[in-house]
């Protein structure tokens, strides 16, 4: 947590404002939809909501510390991204989800074949590449924010994204727009 706790990224966001007001409920409301989308990009469809919810539970339990962070929104995205790519943690989420099956379950988000193919290709990437790519695509994040979220340097993230783009282009039969698949900052 400390690795992302003191970033110099300063762009104000809804979630940040909510956090500074100290309300977990507002933070939850602002962050959950896109967090579910992030989880949906990185984990099997039926687990997306539960993965995002599990990440929020961690934030809820530690809200006193999390709300003090410069960017709680980056922290929750990192927690969710880590949860989504860890097989074991996903399994635990699933066990808890199965335990709740008797209760209400919302149907998984269904996508068109082309979108499903795209996100399946993202999920097939090595974990860090998949996380970097999902943060880029879901949140349209600049390199600095992805780096702050993942606790990596911008150079490392750039390399992850570059490799991810090449692999995705190969898998999906697409062009990268550049000959090297290099990543431009936004």
């Amino acid at each position, binding site marked *: 947590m400390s690795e992302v706790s003191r970033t110099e990224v300063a762009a104000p966001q809804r979630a940040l404002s909510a956090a500074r007001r100290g309300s977990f409920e507002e933070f939850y409301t602002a962050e959950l939809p896109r967090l579910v989308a992030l989880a949906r990009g990185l984990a099997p469809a*039926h687990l997306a909501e539960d993965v995002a*919810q599990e990440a929020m539970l961690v934030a809820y339990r530690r809200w006193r510390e999390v709300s003090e962070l410069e960017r709680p929104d980056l922290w929750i995205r990192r927690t969710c991204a880590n949860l989504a790519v860890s097989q074991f943690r996903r399994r635990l989420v699933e066990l808890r989800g199965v335990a709740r099956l008797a209760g209400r379950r919302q149907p998984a988000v269904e996508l068109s074949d082309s979108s499903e193919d795209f996100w399946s290709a993202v999920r097939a990437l090595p974990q860090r590449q998949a996380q970097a790519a999902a943060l880029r695509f879901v949140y349209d994040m600049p390199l600095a924010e992805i780096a702050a979220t993942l606790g990596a340097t911008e150079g490392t993230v750039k390399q992850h994204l570059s490799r991810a783009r090449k692999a*995705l282009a190969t898998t999906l039969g697409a062009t990268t727009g550049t000959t090297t698949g290099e990543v431009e900052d936004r």
Partner: protein
Amino acid sequence: MTDLDTLARAAATELLDRTTPDVSGRYAELRRVRARRTAAKLVGVVAAVAVAAGGWRLAAGGDGRVEPAPPPSGVHNGDLIGIDWDAPGDMRWWTLIEGEGPAPSRPDDLGRYARVRFTPDGSSLLYPDREGRVVATRLRDGHREVLADCPEPDYCEASLSPDGRVVAISDHGGVRLQRVGATRSELLSIDGADFTASPSWSSDGTEIAFSTEDGVFVAAADGSSVRAVHLFAQRGWYYVPVSWSPDGSRIAFFDLERWGDKATGGNLYRYNVEFTAMTARPDGSDPRVLHRAGRCFCTKAPQPALAWSPDSSLVAVSTTLRAQPGAYVVQPDGTGWHQVGSGYYDAFAWQPVID
């Protein structure tokens, strides 16, 4: 050829447009889950305090060493029990498969997905309960003691050392060891292990076998070494059961092979795993295939189980084969396979009877 950025934008836009969680409903659920987990934790703390304050000790004390098990010649096979996978509701109920039972008292508070073991003297059953604690229930009179808290309440497996003094428990990053009656525990850290499952002590108490997503391993109980007994061809999804023979000569486990996982629509997603029961020497040599044990197909399906007979002459194996689900016994070299019970079992325990 389409540009990757165009594909990505379209996929992200569709994903965001279609992701519309019920935020207020989910928030209410989050508060309920948080309250429930807090309550469960408090119950665990109260129980630990009760034990520390003078409760019964299974075999507390000692100087930190683990003593060997009784020699196999003095041990006979008692009851073989299986945990019914398809018991109604939340019940985790056990069935006598072979032996003289029924035992006067059988626990009814087994945790979800719990695997069970008899204590080395055969008097009690060791299992994780529904509150995420490792419990020993004495079969003679139902006397029940909490031995430790599960580090991961949703997936907990435990094994008692041959001298009954130390509980080895599955945990993140290694195997957790807790002396019976103590309130503190230590992590036997295993490099590279996300999680360890199904810890099983060697008969001399010097080593512990366990499984991870990568395979089956043996670690020295003092943390001085770790070696692989068997590696899966692919990283697994399930944590397979591991059982060290009471005479110490072999380790039984399941090999697993992952086939393509399938989305089935709606909320279900199939994890298509094929299990093969095997034994090998503790150094991984002389691997023997006992039997194919079937596939595990969906989010809520039985995993096959196995357990050694106390005299080390047989291995009990459950299968999930649709045509012939049930309990079987087989000799450690794979010969003599025969059925001893029908139905689906996801855990076995075989009671030792000591002269």
